């Protein structure tokens, strides 16, 4: 009796965890959208973009990525390169090359902003 109950309980738990994962993804996307529209509305998004631009230039990220772009263009050939090619090539590399300090700083700014809003 007891073992049967525990099996049902376990099954229930598994089902619930599956749903909550899906829910969480949806909730994440919704939250992202809300935060983003808040950032746009107050103009904070533009300010953060400028800050990020400055930091990425300062730490050499822009130059690194520019170099990488040139290499990609050289490989693919100037005549055959498309914007979509470049975007596909450099997006993952660009994301990986952002230094942790910069990420931390931006996150901190966003957190502070959200704290002020609520």
């Amino acid at each position, binding site marked *: 009796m007891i073992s049967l109950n525990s099996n049902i309980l376990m099954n229930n738990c598994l089902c619930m965890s599956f749903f909550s994962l899906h829910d969480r993804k949806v909730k994440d996307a919704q939250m992202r959208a809300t935060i983003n529209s808040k950032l*746009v509305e107050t*103009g904070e998004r533009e*300010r953060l973009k400028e800050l990020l631009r400055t930091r990425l230039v300062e730490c050499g990220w822009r130059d690194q990525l520019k170099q990488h772009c040139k290499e990609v263009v050289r490989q693919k050939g100037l005549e055959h390169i498309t914007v979509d090619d470049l975007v596909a090539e450099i997006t993952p590399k660009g994301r990986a090359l952002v230094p942790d300090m910069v990420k931390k700083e931006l996150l901190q700014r966003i957190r502070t902003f959200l704290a002020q809003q609520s």
Partner: protein
Amino acid sequence: MTLSGCQHLQKIKTEKGLDSYKILHACFISCKTADARRRKARHSVCHTCRVYELRLHACMSCVYFGCHQEEHIQSHARANEHWIAVDMSYGMVRCFACDDYVYDKDIDKIAKTLNYRSSIPAALNQFAVWQPNHKEVELLRKNCKRRRVEDSSTIGLRGLINLGNTCFMNTIVQALIHTPVLREYFLADRHVCQLLKEENEQCLVCELSSIFQEFYSGISSTYIPYRLLHLVWTSARHLAGYEQQDAHEFLIAALDLLHRHCIAGPNDRSGSSPHNCQCIIDQIFTGGLQSDVTCQMCNNVSTTIDPIWDISLDLGTRLYNGSNTTNISGYSNSPSNYDPTSLIDCLKRFTKPEHLGSLAKIKCSSCGCYQESTKQLTMKKLPIVACFHLKRFEHSTGYHKKISTYVSFPEELDMTPFMSSSKIQNGDINGCTKGLSCKNKYSLFAVVNHSGTIECGHYTCYIRQHKNQWFKCDDHLITRALPQEVLNSEGYLLFYHKQILEYE
């Protein structure tokens, strides 16, 4: 690349004009007002999948926003033959028939104006490519003579008249004029004077800026720095007068004045933290000197880091007349009281742990007892330009002498052994010297020499014009010099600059 877009864009331009682009840009890309931003926040989603995506495009022929990733804007374009769409992050125009982004002069102009207008209320610092305006184009056309800087050109070299024992000032000016990063700063016109118009003549940085302009103008006649001298006299009273002054003292006073004038006017006596700011002088010259005091009892190390503009090195204790060898000991610890004969020796001495002796017991903060301790100086942070001052002048009570012993110095200097990270601290070998890292390597570019005695002497300097070209500056006389001649000279102030500048 023609800036006239593609045929599809031209068709829209002639048929409907660019009003739709203007509206799209003003409403969704470069929002000026809070209303516009609210609208942007609410409506910047793909009409098909209702998701905000980074590469959202707006159709120019109808009201449709589509995302690029999921191909919604592409299918819309193909289904309706609305080939032109605008990227909503930056305002770039995409043509789906040509399958590429296209550029048009008129569109660029609209985008530039709208971006500029929206950046003002948001107080953003827009990074834009420099385009010469009408006045500038005219100026460039009228002054079409270009100066080519080759290996043999002598641009940047001008003699300085001696205005009465001012050779101490002349040599420092020559050294500063040829300091690489400083030169770039002034030639790029980066100094924005903080003073009001009336006090403008008192700004030392402005004066230095015009001296740079004079030196690099291509004129080779001798320059008379009377305005500079007057400014120095009025700002640094202790250097006024016609007697011979110490070049090192002048350097420090000049750097201090420049630093103060960089951040505020000359009359601002608020005394902001002298070495904590971001002015060009601090960025170039300020290094960090780490001082570690180790308690002999408990081995606790207390560390302080002081900002410094130059490194003053003792030259040992022998007197000017080599025959007199009475040791007036400044160091009580050195078992073999050798005198340094090279810059490296001096630096080794400088960074050697020094036993502070029983007369200088310090209360240790961790074990709380008065104990003898050892002190060690190392470089925590290296400046872009390192100035070494060899202490040749002895000023003790009733006794002034100059130490003229020859101290050799290298053309290339590696500061790695003298860094805090290389020193053995607390028994652990901290960070072995990475032989491949060249971020601590320096190159010599200026040497200031003093010839004569302490009562009557003369300053000259050697400066490096190009990679292997040295010139001797003796007030108004500029002559070519061989590198070996420079390295054989006595050396009083040695200026080195970093070989590689890194991102922080």
